[in-house]
């Protein structure tokens, strides 16, 4: 099982270590540094590294390497899942997962890690249970701490949830306002080729919930068109049998925020592409220059407005500068990172945003071989692009009447246009 954990900054500084069994010297991280030296970017460091006596399994998140050391045959996915869970827990506790925030809260971090693993076996990884045992820092408490000279972070209570057979929910939850909100968030992953034809498109959807209900509510969520969902994964609270039989989500929710389910729609014809992009990026054989012309417009938006459109282009290294004009939004080119960002904002039907101008290349350098890819970000409120719709939410087991709400939003995931 998991032996040790090291947190390493991108600069190669090991700023936290935790051992669940015997202590392993931090010099084991040298193998990671070696791999990092070979990789062109920290993202490219391979997640599984073999060393003579150990295996390093790492994830790279928020500019931190989470490095787990294992000694025996352990499923790597198990380790990776766990490391991501650690990162998420930090995020949840401290609002951000960064070297500074981890250092600021080192005692909590240490306590959390102790609770999450026992001898390398996962113990409590549900945020609900952890929060019961170890209180997250709050502004109020840190103010109080400053005045009184520090008080306890560790809850006086013990993880009662651990004892129940619904380990994800605390007992005795009480709210004055009982509410249950669901966000259906869909991301479009797509690759369009030069001519705008769809090479590949799929939708990654999630339903995130924020449930603040007293007692032990038993919820049932049904969809207008559950047939869309043939590839789903659920939070452990969802009763799989009822889904199989009736295509409804029946569950006793955890308290607070959680991801109820995620799904995946990849039948090509079901994926509507909400924008069209016309682009022409070319570099001239002579004269060390190039031309860029990009036009974006709405398409298949089901009557909704497309907002927050941002186009990012990673230019080849030889592009020194860009002299561009646009009729909407702003464009900036960072000559250091070679990233062109065109922040467009809303897309109107009437005026079609366009960005064009010239690119200046390093003189004397050969014409770049590669074609930059455009990365598109966008957001459509009140629309799930797959057409998924929640039908109704019923509650059993409690008497009160909760507030209910469903919000839809569509975003671009990895949405790329090749040039």
């Amino acid at each position: 099982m998991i032996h040790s954990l090291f947190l390493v900054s991108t600069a190669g500084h090991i700023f936290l270590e935790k051992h669940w069994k015997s202590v392993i010297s931090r010099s084991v991280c040298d193998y990671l540094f070696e791999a990092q030296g070979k990789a062109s970017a920290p993202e490219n460091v391979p997640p599984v590294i073999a060393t003579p006596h150990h295996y390093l399994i790492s994830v790279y998140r928020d500019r931190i390497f989470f490095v787990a050391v294992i000694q025996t045959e352990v499923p790597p996915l198990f380790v990776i899942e766990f490391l991501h869970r650690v990162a998420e827990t930090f995020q949840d506790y401290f609002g951000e997962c960064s070297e500074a925030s981890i250092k600021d809260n080192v005692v909590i971090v240490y306590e959390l890690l102790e609770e999450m693993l026992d001898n390398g076996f996962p113990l409590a990884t549900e945020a609900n249970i952890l929060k019961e045992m170890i209180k997250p820092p709050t502004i109020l408490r840190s103010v109080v701490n400053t005045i009184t000279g520090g008080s306890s972070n560790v809850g006086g209570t013990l993880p009662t949830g651990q004892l129940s057979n619904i380990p994800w929910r605390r007992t005795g939850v009480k709210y004055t306002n009982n509410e249950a909100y669901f966000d259906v968030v869909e991301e479009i992953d797509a690759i369009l080729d030069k001519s705008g034809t769809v090479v590949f498109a799929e939708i990654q959807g999630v339903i995130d919930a924020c449930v603040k209900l007293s007692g032990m509510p038993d919820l049932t969520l049904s969809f207008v068109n559950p047939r869309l969902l043939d590839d789903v994964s659920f939070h452990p609270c969802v009763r799989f049998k009822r889904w199989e039989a009736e295509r409804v989500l029946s569950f006793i929710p955890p308290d607070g925020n959680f991801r109820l389910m995620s799904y995946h729609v990849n039948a090509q014809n079901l994926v509507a592409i909400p924008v069209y992009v016309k682009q022409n990026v070319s570099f001239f054989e002579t004269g060390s220059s190039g031309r860029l012309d990009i036009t974006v417009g709405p398409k298949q938006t089901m009557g909704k407005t497309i907002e927050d459109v941002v186009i990012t282009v990673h230019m080849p290294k030889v592009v020194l500068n860009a002299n561009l004009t646009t009729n909407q939004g702003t464009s900036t080119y960072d000559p250091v990172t070679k990233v062109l960002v065109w922040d467009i904002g809303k897309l109107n039907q009437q005026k079609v945003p366009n960005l064009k101008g010239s690119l200046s290349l390093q003189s004397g350098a050969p014409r770049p071989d590669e074609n930059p890819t455009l990365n598109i970000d966008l957001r459509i409120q009140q629309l799930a692009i797959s057409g998924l719709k929640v039908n109704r939410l019923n509650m059993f087991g409690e008497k009160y009447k909760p507030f209910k709400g469903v919000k839809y939003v569509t975003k671009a995931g990895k949405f790329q246009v090749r040039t």
Partner: protein
Amino acid sequence: MTDSKYFTTTKKGEIFELKAELNSDKKEKKKEAVKKVIASMTVGKDVSALFPDVVNCMQTDNLELKKLVYLYLMNYAKSQPDMAIMAVNTFVKDCEDPNPLIRALAVRTMGCIRVDKITEYLCEPLRKCLKDEDPYVRKTAAVCVAKLHDINAQLVEDQGFLDTLKDLISDSNPMVVANAVAALSEIAESHPNSNLLDLNPQTINKLLTALNECTEWGQIFILDCLANYTPRDDRESQSICERVTPRLSHANSAVVLSAVKVLMKFMEMLPKDLDYYGTLLKKLAPPLVTLLSAEPELQYVALRNINLIVQKRPEILKHEMKVFFVKYNDPIYVKLEKLDIMIRLASQANIAQVLAELKEYATEVDVDFVRKAVRAIGRCAIKVEQSAERCVSTLLDLIQTKVNYVVQEAIVVIKDIFRKYPNKYESVIATLCENLDSLDEPEARAAMIWIVGEYAERIDNADELLESFLEGFHDESTQVQLQLLTAIVKLFLKKPTETQELVQQVLSLATQDSDNPDLRDRGYIYWRLLSTDPVAAKEVVLAEKPLISEETDLIEPTLLDELICHIGSLASVYHKPPSAFVEGSRGVQHKRLPPRSGSGESTESPEGAHSGGAAIPEAVPAVIPSQGDLLGDLLNLDLGPPTTGVAPAPTSAMQMGAMDLLGGGLDSLMGDDSEPLGGDIGGSPAIGAGFGGTPAVMPASLNAPVGGGLGDLFDLGGGVGTTTSAYVAPKTVWLLAMKAKGLEIAGTFSRRGGVIHMELSLTNKAMSVMTDFAIQFNRNSFGLAPAGPLQVLTPLSPNQTTEVSLPLSTVGPVMKMEPLNNLQVAVKNNIDVFYFSCLYPISILFVEDGKMERQVFLATWKDIPNENEAQFHIKDCHLNSDAASSKLQSSNIFTIAKRTVDNQDMLYQSIKLTNGIWVLAELRLQAGNSNYTLSLKCRAPEVSQCVLQCYETVLKN
């Protein structure tokens, strides 16, 4: 105020200050001090000097303080064992606390203190906790046993904790079960021989019940444990699969992958014709695809595993090609893996898309990725014959870009394409030669030199080109030197007059001026060959090379099966068996897929004989003597290009290679006298076990007189009968006159001179004249289409019959029909359009060049997964083997080899369909027995049934 204050630099008196604070009377101050100590400890400062002071804080009711002190203890107890004893009492007391959570906390912490003296005191509280009334305590205690085992294994055994742990598998609480399983699995890993996890149907049932209710992590442990079980029969296997499938929808990818492992393994036992088998295959695809939308690290592990799954069961993901398309901001390790899988999934159906993608990738930034993409194009050409032309032109386009590393990669792969399709694309050589100067990598130079030598007769200035390389001979790498030597010798043999000087130069360079033994040896061999017998030299050096196999980097089947049992583990990421790398896994047992029950193939399996229960279904079905391979290679061995990177029969080498060498290879080299020796070595299971424990997939022929078998194999073909005309079925009525306003159509199919004909008799049974005939086919399985119009020249008067022979082509649109050989036809005349459907014998699709090279046959037979094999019995046939083979030959079923073992004749036959599908067959006939056994192996197993029908009709008519 945050904890970062604890990180301020150590001042000299810090320890001293802390000591004072720890001994303070104020609770708050104490706690603050412990926090500071912990923070220092976290960042690696040594605060062990404070041990007694911190332990003094342990006796407290404050839970936070207690936990903090526990943390400290776990870290430093080892360095202060004597002091740690002081803490024991508190632990023992806490283990009796009325609050279960405190009991659990105490037993948990105690197990983490790795001090022998403490562990002795731990036994009693642990024993109590294992039987605690509260499941939370029991589950914590279960893990504690594993901890204790890690510290002192003997103690755990002596105290009988292992038995208690085994009992916990039957606990009523799923969490306890999961932890007990996890603990036992961990202990079992260091005790490979102990039968700790004794799985029987009862425990399996308990595990399956617990599976539904325990935490995600517990599910992983249970699934991994389930995967070690071998069900008794296919029904049990199916019921386990049914209960595991819901796990595929879990949000935790590790759970999903572990479930996939269980299913992949148990599926092996299900009969393939079972409906459930198909359902299961369908269910596996979506979760695998979903794994690819997770974080890149998860994707990487998933992709490594998918790579295995795709090799084992390509049908699962064959329609999911697009999810493997690379995004430009994927990390490089993901990109490379995706590319690998794309090639594995490439088929005629999707090759256009794949090529378009690969071409796109070849213009990316990352050099490694671009190189691999170019190589992938070459692999596509070799894998999908229909695409070869397009691949070559894509490669030429890429060469035109003149990007140095792209050109070099392209040349390396084009060399392989030449090997696969000789005499087809040599027109591109000129373009390649233009780029000679830009090649600076040994592999590319060697490939180019090989091409020049191989096609010396077509390159006018081949001698100049090779001479230019010769100038810097000593600076080249060995690879290039060897290649250059061979190429010049080839050139000399092809154009002896002009190149004498050159060959002498290279021979002297190789033999006299080089200190590389390989180079010298090869030089001398050539020299002697050339000087003693140039004709023989020609035969050796310019011998025809075996075609390279389709996929060059498939994992060897036994290893693949073992890896399938390790899906989701490190072994699956490294594609190596766990025994190869996991430290401390002494004598790890090799896991194997369970045998499929109830299907025909098990009857003939030679496995049953010596490997007891753990037979692998992969046993090479009794027929292909693997030494044929080896010897074949030896005979065909082209001494020229060993550096081509593509060994002739690369996939099945591995351990078997070694065995063959001992068994078959030696035998045949030494002749019949050595037979007993060879037989003994090869045949002894003991030796088989010695070779890394593979239960020796024994070539069955070793049991037979080896020398004889070989002889048979190598001098046949000649005896195969002369051509008799292919059997053509009598015409049958396809369209009844009453259904077609008086037009009656009867017909049959034939194949004459390589062309398929549809022989039709059109009869007019109506009262009026019929004219304007035309015919059309619906889309069909093999793309049959009329090659010309229906030639009915004169109008067909009433009661007249005309015979028409319609030539057919196979380039029409393709759609899979049910049955496969169904053909829907529309015939039009001046009256109306009529539709009918007919069945054509698949033999009309057997092409004339369907005779496979022996070596290729052997390699292909092994290459095709065993589940694609179908076995049939043909009854009431009274032909002897020669008559049968000549009869079959007339229908383009070619006999490649014949062997006689125990009075049983075995014919190895190959068939090629018009669409390039190869069907390999083994036909067994026994004198005096009218029942034949036919085994068919084909990458498209759907055709087997049709081929069987064709065998039956041909043999019986």
